[in-house]
């Protein structure tokens, strides 16, 4: 189950390795950053901020805001982790990302998830991200532009498949589509002069659409 995540993380991790070393990170720093943060967009936004001369606090604030959705993911997946001890929860929390959240939630709902299967998904994701970063940082001149192999579409493809998997009935599908519309409306609002930070493009639609779902479907079975 984790292999598509590995496939998706490797090229993006490689891009992080390339951009980080071009921004002044040593290879070791780039690899350790990916290995300890496992933060995807949060890492890229940190690089952007650093290159713009931001302070340490501003960099950390940016990465935290981008990844605030992990708080939502944590609250959601916690409902399936009540049986686990604190140590196991702490280990699983370390590998919580968009993709591991979606795959593990899907497995939990299907009844096929165990603590070990969830660790496995997280570990494969972590290896893909760290290995990708190492490859990018070590061989950035040889790799050139990783997008020419179409690997850039691995993550969007995975999101599309995961969306179908997680939209388990018509109500969830409708709310997911609504979240998509809101997500597209936020950047489009710049046309009428309202600028919304792109760090909010995921969290605002998710919170609002789920709230609308809660109000529209009061009899929805919770699991």
């Amino acid at each position, binding site marked *: 189950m984790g292999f598509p995540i590995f496939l998706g993380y490797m090229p993006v991790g490689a891009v992080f390795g390339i951009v980080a070393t071009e921004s002044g990170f040593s290879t070791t720093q780039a690899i350790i950053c990916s290995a300890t943060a496992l933060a995807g967009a949060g890492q890229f936004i940190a690089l952007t901020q650093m290159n713009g001369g931001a302070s340490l606090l501003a960099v950390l604030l940016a990465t935290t805001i981008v990844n605030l959705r992990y708080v939502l*993911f944590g609250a959601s997946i916690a409902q399936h982790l009540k049986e686990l001890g604190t140590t196991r929860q702490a280990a699983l929390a370390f590998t919580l990302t968009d993709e591991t959240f979606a795959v593990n939630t899907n497995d939990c709902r299907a009844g096929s998830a165990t603590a070990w299967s969830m660790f496995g998904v997280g570990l494969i994701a972590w290896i893909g991200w760290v290995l990708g970063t190492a490859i990018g940082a070590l061989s950035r001149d040889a790799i050139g532009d990783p997008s020419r192999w179409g690997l850039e579409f691995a993550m969007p493809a995975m999101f599309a498949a995961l969306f179908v*998997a997680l939209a388990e009935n018509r109500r969830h599908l409708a709310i997911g589509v609504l*979240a998509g519309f809101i997500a597209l409306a936020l950047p489009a609002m710049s046309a009428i002069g309202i600028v919304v930070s792109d760090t909010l*493009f995921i969290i605002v639609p998710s919170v609002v659409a789920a709230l609308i779902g*809660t109000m529209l479907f009061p009899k929805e079975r919770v699991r």
Partner: protein
Amino acid sequence: MEAGFIWAVVIGMALANYMTRFPSIALFSRVSLPEPFMRWLSFIPASVMGALVALELFRPGGEFIDSAASPHLWAGLLTALAYRLTHSFLGATMVGMIAFVMLRSLFGQ
């Protein structure tokens, strides 16, 4: 950039990201939440994926697509269809990547 500053960012990012992940799991796995809040949480996975997919397919790279000849859009729809038919994440992801490369070439992008 100074190495010391970069190390501070690396360590700070590790802590900051973990703090967005662990406390909510620890808290929400221990407390009983009111039913409407649980229902709200149950809609979160589909909502998050809906937002992510919409942005990836209709606004790839931070720019809205400006024609129907978009490899992102069609490859994404084919991926969703492939998952619906096969229920295989790996298979659907591979279909999506291959479709993307072919469509990109077909659309001359």
